[in-house]
């Protein structure tokens, strides 16, 4: 690609500060969360006593759990960055610019934006380190110094964020490169096939069998198996999610009598994968909440029965770790939804203005976009909770008998996550109001 053309493409348009700032903020949140989580986790690897391996395994599971919502947020940030240019790049393709030229322009821009965000995220992570350092494990606060990563690891994390931006930009551009008209005119409907449901049923059945082996295996192998089942289950949720949302939206479309319901159902049907990406983190958190709620209840019950102090401490630390993992998941999902919602509003600026001209009440558009988030969210949160319940039904059953409080824990965690996302959708309302009336 001609470097002059590249320079023109990289120059932000006048009055588009928000368009550039959004991906920077998104990458900043990703970087800050990764540095903070990894910083906290590294403390556990410095322990070398007899109990340390249990902490290593647990922190590994927690990190594995956070990977999916983190990738979701990272992907949202990267796609947002790439999508800024979709239309212009599609037009360039139509004008004859080569696919490699389009790719270079997008990758360079995405990496530059990600770099700005990553630096901002690093500063934020350093600023909040004293607060995070107050969290206690094994009876004492971790300390700010302990949770700041060594310089080479910070560089590695930033490098990974930049790589994520570049790879996501390339993947996001495949449709532009393959079919410029598809993106330019939005004619391609995102596929979500029923075959996914069949795969899911088979995998859930296999996972159920594996979980039932767990009590016989016990110890380290059992924990690893449980972690593996958890990972597979999360992957399965990702596989089936878009298809479930598509089916659910079709039902809602058939029943829609109000404009906002019709719009919301169509928004989901237009891109079920995108709808899933926005809420998948909550599905993971919901899935995890069932596991965590059950686990904490059972462990507390064991602790109450009387045991060595190390065991009581371990249980308390596991509870702390679970809460941190859940909170981090929710934060990432809320950030993803906020980024996607704000981006959607900015993307549809001209359309929103025209709807205002037509006399459409802003409440209709606002209600439709929030419904397009909240409806899939409820479907996935409840669906994931049911999935997790099936997988650990023997343990869940025991927990229900020994301490029904576990159910309250699960419900509270789900409600908190849903409320958080709902709040974020409300927070983007002023942006819509501004664009609507502009």
């Amino acid at each position, binding site marked *: 690609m001609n470097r002059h053309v590249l320079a023109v493409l990289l120059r932000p348009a006048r009055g588009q500060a928000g368009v550039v700032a959004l991906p920077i903020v998104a990458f900043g949140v990703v970087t800050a969360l990764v540095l903070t989580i990894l910083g906290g986790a590294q403390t556990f690897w410095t322990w070398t006593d007899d109990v340390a391996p249990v902490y290593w395994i647990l922190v590994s599971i927690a990190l594995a759990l956070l990977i999916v919502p983190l990738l979701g947020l990272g992907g949202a940030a990267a796609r947002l960055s790439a999508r800024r240019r979709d239309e212009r790049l599609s037009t360039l393709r139509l004008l004859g610019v080569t696919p490699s030229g389009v790719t270079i322009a997008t990758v360079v821009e995405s990496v530059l934006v990600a770099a700005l965000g990553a630096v901002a995220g690093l500063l934020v992570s350093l600023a909040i380190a004293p607060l995070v350092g107050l969290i206690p494990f094994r009876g004492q606060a971790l300390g700010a110094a302990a949770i700041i990563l060594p310089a080479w690891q910070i560089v590695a994390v930033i490098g990974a964020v930049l790589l994520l931006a570049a790879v996501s930009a390339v993947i996001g551009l495949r449709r532009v490169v393959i079919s410029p008209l598809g993106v330019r005119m939005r004619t391609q409907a995102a596929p979500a096939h029923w075959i996914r449901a069949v795969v899911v049923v088979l995998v859930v059945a296999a996972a159920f069998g594996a979980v039932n082996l767990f009590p016989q295996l016990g110890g380290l192998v059992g924990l690893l198996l449980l972690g593996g089942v958890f990972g597979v289950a999360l992957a399965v949720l990702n596989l089936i999610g878009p298809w479930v949302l598509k089916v659910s939206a079709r039902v809602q479309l058939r029943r829609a009598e109000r404009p906002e319901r019709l719009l919301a159902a169509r928004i989901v049907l*237009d891109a079920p994968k995108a709808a899933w990406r926005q809420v998948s983190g909550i599905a993971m958190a919901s899935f995890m909440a069932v596991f965590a709620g059950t686990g904490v209840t059972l462990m507390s019950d064991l602790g109450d029965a009387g045991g060595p102090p190390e065991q009581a401490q371990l249980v308390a630390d596991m509870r702390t770790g679970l809460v941190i993992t859940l909170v981090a998941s929710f934060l990432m999902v809320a950030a993803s939804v906020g980024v996607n919602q704000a981006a959607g509003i900015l993307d549809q600026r*001209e*359309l929103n203005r*025209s709807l205002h001209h037509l006399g*459409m*009440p802003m409440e*209709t558009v606002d209600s439709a976009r929030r419904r397009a988030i909240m409806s899939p969210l409820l479907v996935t949160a409840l669906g994931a909770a049911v999935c997790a319940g099936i997988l650990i039904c023997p343990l869940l059953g025991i927990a229900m008998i020994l301490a029904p409080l576990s159910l309250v824990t699960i419900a509270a965690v789900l409600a908190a996550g849903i409320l958080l996302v709902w709040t974020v959708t409300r927070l983007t309302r002023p942006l819509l109001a501004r664009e609507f009336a502009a």
Partner: protein
Amino acid sequence: MNAPVLDARSLTKTFGPTRALAGVDLTVLPGESVAIMGASGSGKTTLLHVLAGITAPDSGQVLFTPPGGGTIEVTGLRETARSRLRRESFGFVFQQGLLIPELTAIENVALALMINGVSRREAVQHAAGWLSSLGLAGFEDRRIGELSGGQAQRVAIARAQVTGAQVVFADEPTGALDSQTSSEVMDALLWSTTGQGRTLVVVTHDTDVAARCTRTVAVRDGRILSAGVSEVSA
């Protein structure tokens, strides 16, 4: 004698240092098709927006008289009342159509009625009738991205008319179309408005489009240079 459907008096509007309207008077009679022409920045789109109650003028007033009588001072209404007036009594066609891409053609048209409280079944029936009248039978379930520019504009015309709008405001409705398609879209726009006894106000650069209207209003520097002579009896 017909009362003007729109009566604008002494309209002024400034955007920062730019004076978009500098004392505009204009009357539009029922059944007229009025073309507003002028160079970019002349104030023609601002005039259209003020007439339609989208933008409030700094001073002056716009009066709208529906067929049943009872003049409404558009400029004296609050934003919510103006929005209601726009969706119930006015229709709009924009240069790019600006249809909702997630919806099908028929849903885009039906939505205009559903917002006014019409049931979905009834709204879809009316929408299908308008799409068919505009030569789009068989295209009802197409997504907007699957339609040509001319087809999308006809969907936008159906959306503007399905509510029974007394006045349709069109902002460069053929600006993105070739001459053949442009002519077809104007056929559809005129048939669906003045052809049904309704009124059309269209902002355009295109002299061919203006020539097909009953009157041309020339605007420059926020003032009306010539208001033309109406072919519709007052």
